[in-house]
């Protein structure tokens, strides 16, 4: 059976390194990365990841826009999307859910929360 794929999207190289490290150590999932919303859209179309973990504030196309576009496209409509950002205000989270995300996590990432969340979508 092919390994499940997680698409990590963040314009921070540090965040991508950390995310990749967690995914590769804790799971057997394959890890893909993108550095903005446009690249994420292209990779989601090409690679059909099983989950997208995406930052909100990014150049070229932010996480809200990318999330909306993924929900509009047949090929990416059903992919679970988790938005990840430093902004924890209710209005901001609401905007995230309106863009079509399934979950919303605030940075800095809480370890338990992230691991549990990945497992809840993709299994052990």
């Amino acid at each position, binding site marked *: 059976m092919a390994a499940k794929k997680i698409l990590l999207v963040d314009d921070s*190289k*540090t965040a991508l390194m950390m995310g990749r*490290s967690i995914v590769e150590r804790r799971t057997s999932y394959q890890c893909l990365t993108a550095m903005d919303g446009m690249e994420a859209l292209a990779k989601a179309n090409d690679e059909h990841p099983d989950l997208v973990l995406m930052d909100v504030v990014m150049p070229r196309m932010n996480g809200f826009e990318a999330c909306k576009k993924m929900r509009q496209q047949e090929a990416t409509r059903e992919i679970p999307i988790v938005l990840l950002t430093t902004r924890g205000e209710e209005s901001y989270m609401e905007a995230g859910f309106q863009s079509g995300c399934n979950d919303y996590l605030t940075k800095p990432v809480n370890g*338990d929360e992230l691991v549990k969340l990945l497992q809840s979508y993709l299994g052990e």
Partner: protein
Amino acid sequence: MKVATSPVRVLKDARLEAAQHRLRESVGPVDTLEAIREIVTGLLGCEEIALFTVDRGNSTLFWSFGIDPTQHKTLDTFEEPALQRVLDGEFHLAKAVGEPRAGISNPPLRVFVPIRMNSRTVAVLVMLRLLPQKIAFDESDIRLVKLLSNEAGRGVFGEGTDSRPPAARRNR
């Protein structure tokens, strides 16, 4: 024999390793400052950052992110009683004073980090207010702060780097 590792431990090590790699792979002062920004915002939870150079008792704002630089031209603007300890090489955690945030009852935390090179403090990194969701500083955060203290200076102020403030470089 494979040793089981708890998810929390894995994440904490992953944070430190990512920060260490990012700092060591950064090329030149601009990229190192970007690495510092990524570590402080994404891993430590602060979006108001200032870096001051220090020399013989004088401090000057070198670089900042998310603050009004005209309000913090030197370290003296913070009126921090523990500043000398920071200059002597200890990091310091304090309650931030100033404008309260809507809906937040506890004052946010402020962190002062000495940037060390050759056993000397060459700069001080100030995280002005940690994000509201970042209510405590644990052992893992302290390891990250120590990493910044010991390794961030090399890429910004080390031999062969252009140590003028980024704004001065852009105006060249």
